[in-house]
């Protein structure tokens, strides 16, 4: 029953977060980009839970819980936006959505 250093959890979280960022940066499909955001949120949740363990307090769980709720809300709205965008532009390429440029 060897113990795991707490930094491993945090490092795992950092790796997952970085992978999420990478997905955000290098993917062009808007749905995938959105999933990368979820991945980042998950990584942050892992950090919260780890710190909750570290400080032996339930507060981190609450934060993770709120993150989940907000993520669910965000997914609902975000996906609705994606549907609308697709309806109007018939593309999912994030680079093609740049009306704000001019």
């Amino acid at each position, binding site marked *: 029953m060897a113990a795991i250093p707490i930094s491993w959890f945090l490092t795992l979280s950092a790796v997952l977060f970085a992978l999420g960022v990478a997905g955000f940066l290098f993917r062009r499909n808007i749905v995938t980009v959105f999933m990368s955001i979820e991945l980042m949120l*998950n990584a942050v949740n892992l950090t919260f839970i780890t710190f909750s*363990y570290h400080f032996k307090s339930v507060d981190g769980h609450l934060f993770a819980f709120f993150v989940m709720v907000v993520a669910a809300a965000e997914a609902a709205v975000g996906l609705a936006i994606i549907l609308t965008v697709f309806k109007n532009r018939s593309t999912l390429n994030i680079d093609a959505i740049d009306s704000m440029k001019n």
Partner: protein
Amino acid sequence: MNVILFLIFAIIAVVCAINVVVQTHPISSAISLVGVMGSLAILYLLLGAEFIAAAQVIVYAGAVMVLFIFVIMLLNAGAEVKQGRSVVVHLLGVPLLIAFLGLVAYFVQRLFPRDVEVTFGGFTGGTAQAIGRALFTTYMLPFEITSILVLIAIVGAIVLARKEMD
């Protein structure tokens, strides 16, 4: 045992996360993401967060990701088209990512020495009861506000969805 469990699921999580990023087809990415979430749920159990682990599976894997898959199916989104236009991303992306990961990992290792350790059962405060109690006392106000946020999200989603109907 702890270490083995951690390593198994950490590796699954990382592999799945890499898969999320490298798969060209969104549905493969989505399935990989479910894998990440599932293995994270087990890591949560290891950290004594049983309720959050269950919520993770129900909310994230069971609801949010199903929604994603739904949308992917609805849009019948195929593999993405390559037409890169962003110079910045190509020039700075990888070095910045490496710098970011390196810095964070370095500081994590420095701030949390090896003797701060996690064992299964080392923290048992994550029961549904404890979370419920905290949620309805200390975090009452945030909870209420979150519920309003969710309501707004529902209304927003419906409005957006209706607009595309007509």
